[in-house]
């Protein structure tokens, strides 16, 4: 008897549970339906929008300035092309040597312009080759020192007209290029007084020396410094040594030139020697 009662209560409990499940399912189904309704509304709205845009007349897409950085990309592409043309060996074949246009970032603050002075009536600073064989071009254009002034110097009965040319720049890039140029301090410099007093006849030998030194690797520069017995050369950089060695090498070139000119004079004297020898025979 008691077993029958137990079975009946269990059955009741099962029915109750089944009723709860049914309610839950119904609620979920209702929610799904609601969601579906929202989606359908959304789809209908999008369809309506699509139809609206489909019915619009075609408008051409603007090609210029489509992207804000497009001009910058073009500019960079041009610069890459220019630089690739300037690569050693290709440059002579280029139709025209092109330089980078300066921009505001290249400017030095106002009032900090630098004036470089040269002893020629006109001087053009072009490119040079560094010790790696890389050609260094002026950053923006050929740098041309224009005539500035003349002075008359008297030495005994000799009178000499001395000419000066100058170049003023407010571009950082040009200042750096000129300061690192192998002829800086030889054919041109920032110190006007120093350049005015520079012996122009000496500087022609210094130019030859500087040209050779600019293409020499640092280890050769140190060897040279050792040969010329430059004091404390080990504690100096290759760049510092280049400037110190220039004067020593220039002396050698000057001596070589003098030797060649003396040969012409000596030939006359040797002529007499030949004659004397013949007489002795």
């Amino acid at each position, binding site marked *: 008897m008691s077993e029958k009662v137990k079975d009946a209560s269990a059955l009741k409990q099962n029915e109750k549970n089944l009723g709860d499940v049914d309610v839950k399912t119904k609620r979920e189904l209702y929610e799904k339906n609601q969601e579906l309704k929202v989606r359908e509304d959304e789809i209908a709205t999008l369809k309506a929008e699509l139809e609206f845009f489909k019915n619009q007349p075609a408008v051409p897409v603007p090609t210029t300035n489509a992207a804000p950085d497009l001009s910058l990309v073009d500019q960079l592409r041009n610069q890459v092309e220019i630089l690739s043309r*300037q690569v*050693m060996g290709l*440059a*002579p*074949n280029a*139709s025209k*040597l092109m330089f980078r246009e300066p921009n505001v970032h290249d400017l030095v603050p106002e009032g900090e312009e630098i004036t470089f002075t040269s*002893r*020629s*009536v*006109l*001087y*053009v*600073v*072009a*490119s*040079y*080759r560094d010790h790696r064989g890389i*050609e260094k*071009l002026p950053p923006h254009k*050929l740098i*041309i020192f224009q005539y500035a002034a003349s002075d008359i110097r008297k030495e005994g009965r000799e009178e*000499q*007209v*001395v*000419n*000066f040319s100058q170049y003023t720049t407010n571009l950082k890039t040009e200042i750096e290029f000129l300061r690192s140029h*192998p*002829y800086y301090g030889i*054919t041109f410099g920032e110190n006007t007084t120093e350049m005015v007093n520079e012996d*122009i*006849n000496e500087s*022609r030998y210094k*130019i*030859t020396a500087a*040209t050779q030194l*600019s*293409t020499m690797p640092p280890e050769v520069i140190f060897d040279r410094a050792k040969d010329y017995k430059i004091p404390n050369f080990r504690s100096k950089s290759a760049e510092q040594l280049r400037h110190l060695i220039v004067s020593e090498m220039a002396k050698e*070139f000057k001596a*070589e*030139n*003098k030797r*060649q*000119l*003396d040969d*012409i*004079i*000596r*030939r*006359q*004297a*040797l*002529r*007499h*020697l030949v*004659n*004397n020898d*013949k007489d002795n025979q």
Partner: protein
Amino acid sequence: MERDKRWTRREMQKFQNLGTTNYFELDKKEQLDLLLQDLFISLWNGERGEANVRVPGASVDYKAMTMGGIFPLMVAAGCANSSGVTSATLKEVFEALAFQTDYKAEGGVRFIMAQNVLLYELSKVWKEAGVRYSPDSRIGDLNLYEYKIGDMRFVPVAIELFKELSCFPADFKNRIFVLDLDTLTPVCMTGYQPIETGETNMKGQGGSILDFKEWWIQGMLSLKFNNPLSSFYIDTTGIAS
């Protein structure tokens, strides 16, 4: 400047008896060539001044006047120039200097003087990029015999002696000169000729008692450079090896 050669009668007779060459004529020509070479070096690179010359065996010096050459005068005058110019910038530098030193009338000619390699490089700068050949082309001529730039004219003149190290310093082989020859006047003392030759009498001729004949050639030259500023020079790097 002087060159001479002394021939004793015995030497001359010896060569005449052998009689197979024109040795005397060749010897004279050699002396002339050497003198012209000395004049040429002085014309380009002479240092103006006075030199002491001591004849070997003599006890005193004698004074010799030396002429100022084209290049030292250009340097002293501070002529327009550019240094360290490479192939890449040769054209631009040349054009910039040419226009800045254009003091001549329209169509005025200036002369470009350098060794052949540099002149060829210069002509290539303008010509190479534009030269095209057809299948039946047999000659590739990359030379230019005159450059017309603006209203200026330039004529290249090759000077191969610039690369001769026994005559000129090493930097001459890398140098391009552009000269306005109208401003350059070679001069010598009035009454002298720039080049004179002659020979002395042998013994018995014209009362001479000398038993030799001396053949001599002498040159006297100097330079007036009126306006060095219409000329310019370019020192190149890495073009001529």
